[in-house]
């Protein structure tokens, strides 16, 4: 199972997407203006009914006979993308998200033109610069400078152009003396730096970035994103594949969720990412019968007990709207609903809930014993629903909820069911001033200004 499917907690030094002085109303207005703008902007890339399939034959010769026009039956046809259609307008910043193997990278390769669609068509009359996987067809024996000349030329730059761009590329890559050392001595991060510096040396009409930035360190990621943002603001169209959802929220104005080769959702970031998170949560719950597993987010889920009482479901709702959510905003009032099914006779039931951060530290936890709400004498077939109401005073990041069903204040006496990290949710900061950490303190500065001495 993929571990890197949802790297929601990634340290970026970037400021919050929206300042506190810009209220929710301002955003809504800005968004509707943007929508209006969108419909006027020209389409720069059109993907129509694109299907990519790999045809497997019993032998290489069968494939050869097939080209020659003989009716050879293929062994298997594997569809990577199925009937994908979407238009991209000038200046849009789009993210493709989805699990590994969903077909995102294949789609980028089709758009870039290194792969050709089996069916359908892709139209773009504009220059595309793409960073697919690591590097840009670099030669490991060449120095960084020589590779810039080689790959830069292959990408379509003239030698004179490249010599003119060379100082900029060298400065942006910031790999120091390694720029004149063979590529085989580079770390993967340094290769990514060189590739990004070269691919973005001039602004293309469409920039395609496939996950390379995750190889770079936080400093370079930040720098790369600054350049991508600058391109976007200059009217460059951005298409990126990433598993870093905070980056998506910050940089993109449209997200395509790709699942099993089809576009499952196409819309604004928060909507699609929430849907994606729910999709993943569903998948986790479907295989809960396992006693121990590592879930898609990398959280380890362990379940133990005699299962006389079991947690059927945990869901989170926004208190004001009542809408189910997978992502909470800092300071938002939320409801955490826990459904408990009773499968055997339970003399006394206590529910404990514990919230952990990504590093496993317990952020908060209590149980219904301490709140004097233990329920007694319950019989099989009953369902209890616990609603925990709280203000989400947590910092941005990913958190897990571990429910425990016990008979008193500890689980040592009667452990009905204990599940670690059963429910996972994200917290994002949309309308509060930027801060770090897992706790939102109700803190404020006051500054007195005078002369010293």
């Amino acid at each position, binding site marked *: 199972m993929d571990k890197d499917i949802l790297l929601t907690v990634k340290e970026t030094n970037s400021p919050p997407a929206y300042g506190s002085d810009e209220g929710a109303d301002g955003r809504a207005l800005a968004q509707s203006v943007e929508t209006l703008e969108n419909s006027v902007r020209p389409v720069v890339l059109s993907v129509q009914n694109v299907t990519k399939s790999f045809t497997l034959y019993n032998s290489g010769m069968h494939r*050869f006979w097939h080209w020659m026009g003989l009716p050879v039956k293929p062994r298997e046809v594997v569809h990577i993308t199925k009937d994908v259609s979407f238009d991209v307008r000038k200046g849009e910043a789009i993210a493709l998200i989805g699990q590994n193997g969903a077909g995102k990278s294949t789609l980028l390769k089709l758009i870039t033109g290194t792969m*050709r669609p089996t069916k359908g068509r892709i139209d773009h009359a504009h220059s595309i610069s793409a960073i697919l*996987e690591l590097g840009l*067809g670099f030669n490991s024996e060449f120095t960084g400078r020589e590779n810039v000349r080689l790959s830069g030329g*292959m990408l379509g730059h003239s030698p004179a152009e490249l010599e003119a761009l060379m100082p900029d590329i060298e400065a942006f890559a910031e790999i120091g003396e390694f720029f004149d050392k063979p590529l085989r001595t580079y770390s993967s991060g340094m290769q990514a730096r060189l590739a990004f510096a070269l691919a973005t040396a001039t602004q293309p009409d469409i920039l395609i970035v496939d996950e390379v930035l995750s190889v770079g360190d936080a400093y370079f990621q930040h720098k790369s994103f600054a350049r991508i943002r600058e391109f976007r603001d200059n009217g460059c169209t951005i298409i990126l594949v990433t598993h870093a959802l905070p980056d998506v929220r910050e940089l993109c104005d449209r997200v395509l969720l790709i699942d099993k080769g089809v576009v499952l959702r196409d819309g604004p970031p928060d909507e699609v990412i929430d849907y994606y998170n729910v999709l993943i949560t569903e998948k986790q719950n479907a295989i809960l019968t396992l006693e121990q597993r590592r879930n898609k987010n990398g959280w380890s889920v362990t379940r133990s007990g005699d299962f006389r009482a079991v947690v059927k479901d945990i869901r989170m709702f926004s208190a004001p709207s009542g809408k189910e959510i997978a992502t909470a905003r800092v300071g938002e009032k939320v409801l955490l609903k826990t459904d408990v099914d009773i499968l055997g006779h339970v003399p006394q039931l206590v529910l404990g809930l514990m919230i952990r951060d990504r590093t496993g530290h317990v952020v908060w936890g209590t149980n219904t014993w301490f709140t004097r709400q233990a329920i007694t004498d319950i019989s099989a077939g009953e369902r209890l629903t616990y609603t925990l109401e709280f203000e989400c005073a947590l910092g941005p990041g990913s958190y897990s909820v571990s429910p425990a069903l016990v008979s008193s204040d500890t689980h040592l006496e009667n452990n009905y069911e204990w599940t670690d990290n059963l429910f996972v949710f994200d917290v994002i900061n949309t309308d509060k001033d930027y801060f770090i950490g897992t706790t939102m303190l109700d803190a404020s500065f006051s500054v007195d200004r005078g002369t010293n001495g």
Partner: protein
Amino acid sequence: MFEFLRPLWRNRHFIPAAIGGEFKSRVARSKIGTLWFVLQPLAMATIYALVLSEVLGAKLGGIEQAGAYSVYLLAGITAWSLFTEILTRCINMFLEYSNVLKKISFPKVYLPIVVLGGALINNGLLFLTVAVIIALYGFFPSFAWISLILPMTVSIMLAFGVGVVLGVMNIFTRDIAQVMTVVTNLWFWLTPIVYTDDQAGSSVGRLLVFNPMTPVVKFYHDVIVYRVTPDYISLLYPACLGLALMLLSGFVFWRASPEIVDAL
């Protein structure tokens, strides 16, 4: 109408960059880099010259001039090396460039052009060296040498005709390259490079007629060694075969093109 030419023009810098890269990569970790492309055929010619003329006492019938046999060998090997270099490079070009094919979008037709460019430069260097060496033997260049463009063109056509088809097949069935090292070696011995065709036995002699490289190599011999008017008509058969094979490889290349990157 010329819409399809647009990407060819847009990526025009690909070819010089790639050819330059190939030469540079040879120098990368070797002392004399490109010189090996000249030294290897020369070493081969020297070995044959030593073994066959000194040890086996082979002589070139009809010419009494000293070193005639060495010149005969050098002329044949120069002709052969152009053909064989293009052929083997074609078989491996997609795999050699797989890293680039997967990451940069460019017209795939460029690859054979890059191969041709590199091979012509190498063969040009070899040719110049050989010209100097045989001049030392007293075989001086003449204006007739210009006609060598014809057999060169024919061998280039043959090499691409065979090489591109096999190169495409080699992506999907990697055994092709292995088989071809053996086949090329056999082909070399079935071409009158080391021996003259009247030295060949009757069974081999009959095979030589079908070998399209025979007239090509003989053309070189006629011009460089025997200094007689070459048999232009004899190039008709390999030229037609080369053209037919190039059409076939063009067709296979066109059919396979969408699947090439998928299999790399």
